[in-house]
């Protein structure tokens, strides 16, 4: 799976959720702390499975890693305004779904620089907004929605409680009948029948 040239030219095969494989340079992969911890020291025979993420997402993540190979070491979050044109294009090209997938993959692969830039981008979406607007950006349920949800849950809980009580009652009755000895059961039935007969004859 690796092409054994010089260490900087080593290529690794990456396997996506679709089962597709593509190669990524060792230098790019080394930006992932997860990769460093998992494979770099023990080596990998065959494709490295990152099967929680699709090919497009992984390719996007490693595109970033390949690009930043020659950049200086990561030294904390960078303000969005300080990003290069390439970086800005990289982020602007992504749609919302891809962006979220890239954050998740970047977080899993522990690529500090990319995760940090993505988070800065989210933080930027929140800047200059009040609480109500922030709730919309981070798609949290509103107070009314939470209240409605709570009411539904309370209703469900009450219904479940009723069902449980009924079930318990039925079980108790059955249990009482089951627990009576046969002789006693015969006597109880006989008494009932006698009472019925007497009431009938009285009429």
């Amino acid at each position: 799976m690796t092409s054994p040239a010089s260490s900087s030219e080593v290529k690794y095969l990456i396997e996506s959720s679709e089962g597709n494989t593509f190669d990524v340079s060792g230098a790019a992969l080394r930006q992932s702390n997860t990769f460093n911890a998992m494979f770099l020291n023990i080596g990998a025979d065959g494709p490295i499975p990152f099967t929680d993420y699709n090919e497009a997402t992984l390719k996007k993540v490693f595109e970033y890693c390949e690009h930043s190979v020659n950049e200086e070491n990561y030294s904390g979050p960078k303000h969005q305004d300080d990003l290069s044109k390439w970086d800005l294009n990289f982020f602007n090209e992504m749609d919302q779904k891809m962006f979220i997938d890239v954050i998740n993959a970047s977080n899993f692969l522990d690529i500090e620089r990319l995760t940090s830039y993505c988070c800065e981008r989210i933080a930027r979406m929140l800047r200059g907004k009040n609480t109500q607007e922030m709730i919309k950006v981070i798609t949290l349920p509103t107070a009314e929605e939470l209240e409605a949800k709570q009411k539904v849950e309370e209703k469900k809980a009450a219904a479940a409680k009723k069902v449980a009580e009924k079930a318990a009652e039925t079980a108790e009755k059955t249990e009482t009948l089951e627990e009576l000895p046969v002789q006693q059961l015969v006597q109880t039935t006989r008494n009932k029948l006698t009472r019925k007969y007497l009431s009938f004859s009285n009429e």
Partner: protein
Amino acid sequence: MSFHINRSPFLVQIEVLKQLEINEIFLMSLCSRKMKTLVQRIRLRPKKIRYSLDDNETQVSVGFTESDEKLHHMAKVKHVSYIPVDEMTSQQLGGERIECRYSKNSLTEVFTFTLEHLEENDKNVLALLQNHCARLFSNKPRIQLEIYSVATLMLSGIINDVKDTSFICEKLNTSEIRRYLRMHSNHESVQVRSRCQGRVFTKKSKLLKMDGLSILRTGAMTPTIMHNFSGRFLLLQNSVLCYQQWSEVIRKWKNKEAYHKLHAMIANNPKPLPNVLNWIPLLREFNALHWDGSRRPQYFKLDPKFVETIHFPQCDPEDIDCTDWLDIEQDGGNKWASIQMTAAQIRFFVWN
């Protein structure tokens, strides 16, 4: 573009919050209970939290260093007499729901938004605000108050554990300061920038027992304040200085009659000092000696607690070079004090 923060990995949520400014973090903490918990997880540990109380608004700032220069503005809350129904929103604050609205401030303001609530809830909202802010941090920051209006003196009683106060209102009666200090009993320092009127402070006054005290317009009260002060740090600005007063301070300290805890006493005079007083007899009286390079260190370090809590504008917290200062020895002990008289001020520092 929206983003499901609840569905994103925990580390991403934390990283997003870490990249926000403190006022944005405050607004985020109001979004939901989960967001508030998340804010608690980023473990903010400010050194101090300052509530600035004015007639109709309260500002909250936090400092992550001792210095006032790096104070971060966190929240601005304002009471209004009316909020149109269509603009009103219900907001969870400090464990209760309040009716309020967010008004956007101009770009020149440090706060992007002001949380406006109805006037009748003023007391309650301040208590809820304090409650909310206190729970956001993983430590217990030092609580400071700035009083911009006399009308807020009573309201300030809602805020607990106040350690430092600055009175910034224009005029203030000494009886109001007395009442205020009875309300907040754990004070460590007070700064009075207001013009004071009323009965002078006596030895029994809490103000003069304060560890740190800074008075901007001491005026005619200077001798009484100097005479009765029993704290550690006294800064008198625009004071009226007299030979007799300083002579008494030095004598009492030297004889161990008073000023047992004294760390520093500084007085600024609006008039150039040499024209006011002739210091040579005073220095002779107490056998003031030039520094010989051995009896005490060259640099004096003012306790940063005072320098930063009571707004000490003349001096940075750096060490003060006392090479040219004169030394006075306390009777029967190894304690030394150094005194310096310049055209602008008199400084009397006690070496520990």
